[in-house]
């Protein structure tokens, strides 16, 4: 595998050059936390972070997206697709758990029927991943088959080796992307050192839950009252789903003012009480236990069944941000150990 070297102090200039031709999304600090934002200059970006508050899924799958606009006039209706930005996209400094999230979205939106809005952006996106040296309190990527330096899914992958980053060239797209830059090849000992850094980070993440074989046990426990016990404290705020890199439920609304209007796709959440309420009134998931069950089953049974990969990447945002500390790792342990649920 090819590998290049870039000095940390050259990153800002590198980004400045990218901005000339691409929409560059990078982690930006604001209000005390990090978010992926389009940057206008390389100095806005910071790679010195654990993870962003919101996952970068909103780059490819925005919270609110106009699907079409219409205008009524004397002759009839005029329908327009929304204007697209012509520049290609770069997601710079994205963590492996979030790259895996994009892979999950790929399964959903790039399969037949393809989602043209997602596809249009996805095909023009270069992913520059960033390996983790340190984890935060919610991380558990190793328990779900990922890792702090797992580079699959990225086009290029950065590993911090001190004053420099080693850039692993993963895909052809990545190789083409770096063509314009005159970056030195990485020496063998630096490649080896990067591998050591990756291994250290992997070892530092003590496994906290065993997800292997969970599909069967979870399916067996479908009707178990344990779901109500586990989720009793859930307040249905939906933050877990909004911040999750793989969650992709959406609603489509129409809005109009006088003679013009638009159709919009917006995020929705299976954790909201009214999510499954039907037009005539009945609600199949009318309790918190049923909604929590849906969340866990979807991520660990249905999604793997249908798409061949887990619906959870272990990023830990739901653990850190849940107002009532409903810890998905703990939930899984309770369900899988058939021990007493608290």
């Amino acid at each position: 595998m090819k590998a290049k070297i870039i000095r940390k102090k050259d990153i800002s200039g590198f980004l400045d050059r990218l901005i000339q031709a691409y929409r560059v999304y990078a982690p930006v600090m604001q209000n005390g936390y990090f978010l992926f934002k389009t940057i206008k200059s390389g100095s806005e970006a910071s790679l010195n972070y654990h993870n962003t508050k919101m996952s970068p899924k909103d780059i490819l799958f925005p919270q609110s997206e106009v699907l079409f606009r219409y205008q009524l006039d004397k002759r009839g209706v005029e329908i327009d697709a929304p204007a697209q930005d012509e520049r290609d996209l770069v997601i710079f400094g994205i963590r492996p758990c979030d790259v895996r999230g994009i892979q999950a979205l790929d399964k959903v939106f790039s399969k037949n029927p393809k989602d043209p809005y997602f596809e249009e952006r996805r095909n023009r996106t270069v992913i520059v991943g960033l390996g983790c040296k340190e984890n935060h309190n919610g991380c558990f990527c190793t328990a779900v088959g990922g890792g702090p330096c797992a580079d699959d899914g990225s086009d290029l992958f950065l590993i911090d080796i001190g004053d420099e980053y080693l850039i692993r060239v993963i895909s052809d797209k990545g190789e083409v992307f770096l063509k314009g830059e005159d970056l030195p090849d990485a020496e063998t000992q630096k490649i080896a050192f990067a591998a050591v850094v990756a291994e250290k980070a992997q070892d530092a993440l003590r496994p906290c839950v065993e997800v292997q074989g969970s599909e069967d046990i979870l399916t067996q426990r479908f009707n178990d009252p344990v779901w109500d016990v586990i989720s009793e404290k859930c307040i249905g705020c939906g933050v877990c789903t909004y911040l999750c890199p793989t969650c992709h439920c959406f609603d489509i609304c129409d809005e109009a003012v006088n003679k013009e209007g638009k159709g919009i796709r917006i995020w929705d959440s299976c954790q909201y009480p009214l999510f499954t309420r039907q037009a005539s009134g009945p609600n199949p998931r009318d309790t918190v236990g049923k909604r929590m069950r849906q969340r866990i089953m979807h991520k660990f049974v249905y999604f793997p069944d249908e798409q061949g990969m887990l619906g959870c990447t272990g990023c830990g945002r739901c653990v850190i941000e849940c107002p009532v500390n409903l810890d998905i790792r703990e939930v899984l342990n309770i369900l899988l150990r058939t021990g007493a649920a608290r």
Partner: protein
Amino acid sequence: MAEPKIEKWEPKIVAFLCNWCSYAGADLAGISRIQYPNNVRIIRVACSGQVNPWFILANIQQGIDGVLISGCHPGECHYLTGNYRARRKFALLKNFLQFVGLEEGRVHFTWVSASEGVRFAKVIEKVTDIVRSLGPAKKLVKRI
């Protein structure tokens, strides 16, 4: 010879008038041929207490430049206490909308009785002047 038409912005004002007093007062102004600015579009409601803050906000969202709510004088409400409830509600709402930065002259409240045709016309004139001086609605307006 036709005069060339000059397009000049004129404020759009919506007035929610209670059926028993203010609406009757507006009627009286009309019957008495008292002139008042035609910027106002009148919506008849049963009582000023019926007016939901959403009516006001929906108007603002749709780009209406000024909103007026008018009811019976305190003590004269056809439903006895409707306007008392409205008084409390709208005292809070007016301060609140101003607090978030909406221009103070966009939303108005007043009392006009069925016999006050002249007063109604004066209210409309004053509201129209204030709203005209503020210019077209910009804040909280929804753009499609």
